[in-house]
C-alpha cells in the first residue's frame, strides 16, 4: 500500500481488537496539535521506513504531522557515520574540524527548516544540534534509535551537551539509555504489517520468489535475515546448522545485504561463503536493500527463523518473522530479549550449541512450532506493530503538551 494512501482504518483488521477505536479517541485529545519529525534521510533505513508510514497515519488521525529531512554534504555524513559508530562503542577518529562542520550543517539546516511545532521529535544524532536554534514555544524531544550503552566517551560527551537541552529523550530499550538530567521515555520500534516486507502473500507468490532465488522448498528451511556483520554471527549459524543437519535434513538460508557499501560486510560475506563450502543445502544470498518481497517470501517459507546475534540493536527481523507465525531462536542480546518470550514464542540462546539444541528441539516438535508461531504473532500484534508505536507517540504528544 502506498504511504500517501495510508489511513488508520486500513489497520483495523490486523491490529488487536479495539485498538483503532482506542487510537481515534486518544487522538481526539491531541487533535490539531503539530507534531514534527526531523531526521537525516527520506529513504533507506528503519527510521525513514517507519516515518514514511507513521506520518500519514498521524495526519489521518487529525494530528498536524510533518516530516522534515536535513541536508548535508558527504563530509557531514562521513562525520555522522563515524559519530554513529563511536556512539555504539567502536573507536573512531573524530576531529575538531569534523565536529565544527557537523555544527555548521546543523545551523544551516535549522535556519532552512526553522523547525517549530507543539512537539518536535529529532531522530538520531545527525540533527541533534539543531536544538541550539529551538524557538521558545513547543517541546523538543530527542529520539535515539541506537544503542548508547557503551559509547566512546569523547563522542558522547560532545553530543550530550546538546541532548541535555531537550525537554526529554526517547530510547528503544532501557539498556540503550544513558544517565541524563532530562526525562527519558521508552518506546519500542515497530513493524508495519501492511508494508511490502510484511504484507500477506499467496503461496504462488512465495513459490515464484523462491524459484527466482533458486531455493527448493522440499526441506524445512532455517533462515537468518541480517546484514553481513560479525555481530550477527553468520559463521555461528552455519556451525549450528551443521550440528542440526546430523539429525534433520534441512536447508539453511543466510539472507542479507550490506556487502556492497561496507568493506567489512564484503569480508564477512566472503567468510560465510567459505564456511558454507560446497554444501548444496546452504544458500548465502546477498540481497539489495529494497528486496522487501524476497525477504517476506523467505520468512514465510522458513520453518524456523534464527537471529543468532552476539550483539544487537533492537533486531526487528525477529518481529517480522514472528508476525509470519514463525518460532524464533535468537541470541540473548539487545531487543531480542524483549521480542522473544522464552519458551512461548521461541528461545533465546547463548551459544552455537544452544542454538543447535533449540532448533533440533523445535524440529522434533512440530506442534510446538505451530503453537509458538501463533503466540509470536499475537505478541507482535500487541507490542510491535506500527499501531502500538503510534499509540506511544500520541501518548508522548498528549503527556508533554497537555
Amino acid at each position, binding site marked *: 500500500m502506498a504511504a500517501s494512501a495510508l489511513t488508520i482504518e486500513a489497520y483495523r483488521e490486523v491490529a488487536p481488537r479495539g485498538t483503532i*477505536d*482506542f487510537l481515534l479517541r*486518544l487522538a481526539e485529545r491531541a487533535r490539531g496539535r503539530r507534531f514534527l519529525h526531523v531526521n537525516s534521510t527520506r529513504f533507506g533505513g528503519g527510521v525513514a521506513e517507519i516515518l514514511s508510514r507513521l506520518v500519514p497515519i498521524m495526519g489521518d488521525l487529525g494530528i498536524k504531522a510533518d516530516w522534515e529531512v536535513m541536508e548535508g554534504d558527504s563530509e557531514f555524513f562521513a562525520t555522522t557515520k563515524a559519530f554513529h559508530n563511536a556512539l555504539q562503542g567502536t573507536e573512531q577518529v573524530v576531529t575538531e574540524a569534523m565536529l565544527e562542520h557537523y555544527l555548521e550543517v546543523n545551523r544551516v539546516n535549522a535556519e532552512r527548516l526553522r523547525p517549530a511545532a507543539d512537539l518536535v521529535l529529532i531522530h538520531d544524532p545527525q540533527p541533534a544540534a539543531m536544538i541550539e536554534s529551538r524557538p521558545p514555544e513547543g517541546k523538543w524531544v530527542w529520539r535515539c534509535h541506537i544503542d548508547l550503552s557503551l559509547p566512546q566517551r569523547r563522542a558522547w560527551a560532545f553530543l550530550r551537551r546538546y541532548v541535555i537541552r531537550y525537554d526529554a529523550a526517547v530510547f528503544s530499550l532501557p*539498556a540503550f539509555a544513558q544517565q*541524563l538530567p532530562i526525562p*527519558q521515555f521508552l518506546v519500542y520500534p515497530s513493524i508495519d504489517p501492511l508494508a511490502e516486507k510484511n504484507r500477506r502473500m499467496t503461496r504462488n507468490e512465495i513459490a515464484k520468489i523462491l524459484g527466482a532465488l533458486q531455493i527448493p522448498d522440499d526441506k524445512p528451511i532455517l533462515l537468518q535475515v541480517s546484514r553481513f556483520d560479525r555481530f550477527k554471527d553468520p559463521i555461528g549459524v552455519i556451525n549450528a546448522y551443521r550440528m542440526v543437519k546430523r539429525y534433520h535434513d534441512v536447508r539453511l538460508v543466510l539472507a542479507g545485504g550490506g556487502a556492497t557499501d561496507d568493506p567489512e560486510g564484503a569480508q564477512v560475506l566472503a567468510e560465510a561463503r567459505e564456511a558454507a563450502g560446497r554444501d548444496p543445502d546452504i544458500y548465502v544470498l546477498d540481497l539489495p536493500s529494497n528486496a522487501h518481497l524476497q525477504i517476506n517470501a523467505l520468512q514465510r517459507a522458513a520453518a524456523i527463523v534464527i537471529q543468532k546475534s552476539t550483539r544487537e540493536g533492537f533486531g526487528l527481523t525477529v518481529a517480522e518473522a514472528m508476525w509470519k507465525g514463525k518460532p524464533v531462536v535468537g541470541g540473548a542480546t539487545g531487543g531480542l530479549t524483549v521480542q522473544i518470550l522464552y*519458551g*512461548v514464542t521461541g528461545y533465546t540462546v547463548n551459544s552455537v550449541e544452544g542454538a543447535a539444541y533449540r532448533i533440533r528441539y523445535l524440529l522434533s516438535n512440530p506442534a510446538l512450532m505451530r503453537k509458538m508461531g501463533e503466540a509470536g504473532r*499475537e505478541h507482535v500484534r500487541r507490542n510491535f506493530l506500527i499501531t502500538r508505536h503510534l499509540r506511544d507517540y500520541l*501518548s508522548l504528544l498528549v503527556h508533554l503538551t497537555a
Partner: protein
Amino acid sequence: MVEPAPFVFFGCIELREILGLRARDERELMELLERAPLGSVYYHTHSVFLRHHQITGAYPNDFANWVASQVRDQVLGERLAVVDPFAFPSLEALREELVSIIDHHIAALHPVPRVVFGDPFFFVQSHVIEVPTGLEACTLGEFRRCLAEVDASSIYFHALESRVRRGHPHGDFADWIGQALGLQSQAEEIARINPYLGGLEEIRARMLRLLDAALGGEAPAGGG
C-alpha cells in the same frame, strides 16, 4: 426519582519513563528500591497486569522475576513473588515489605548474588493516560453489557489504578454499584476481588458472574 449518574468507562495507556537506575546485584536492587519514586514501585508490582496479557515470567512481579531469571536466585524470587501488592494499605508499606525481604535474605549470603550473564534490573515508572472508551452505563444491565466488551485497560484503570493511585480504595466499579445503584452487597463482593493471581480477565469474569447473579434470570446481551 433522580437518575443515577452514569458510569463512564475509561481505558488507559502508559507512557514508560526510564529512571536511569539500574541494579546488578541484590543489594543494589534493595538500595535503589528504597529511593526509587513510588511510581516505580507501582510500575514493577501493579502495572505488570496492564503490560502482560500473556504471563510469561514465573511471577506477576518484576522484582521477583528479575532475581529468579537474571540473578538466578530462586529463593529470593519465591519470597518476593508471594508478596501480594494488593494487601498493603499504601505503596510505601509495600516498598518497606519488599526491602525488608531482600535485606533479610542477603544478610545471610556472602557474596551477595549478582547478575553474571543476565541483564541488570532497570527501574521504570509510567505515566498513565486515560482515554474515554465511549461506553456509559446507567443501569446494572447496561453496566454488565459494557463490562463484557470493554478493553482490558479499562478494567485496569477502574479496578487497580483507581484504588492505588486515585484514592478510591474500593475501586470505581464497586463505588458506583454501591453508591449510584445502592447494591451494597455486590459492591462489597466486587471490592474484595483480588487480581494478583488472575489478572484483568479474571476480574472481568468474576464481576460478570456476580452481575449475572444480581440480574437474576435476565439473559444479558453482549459477550462474556
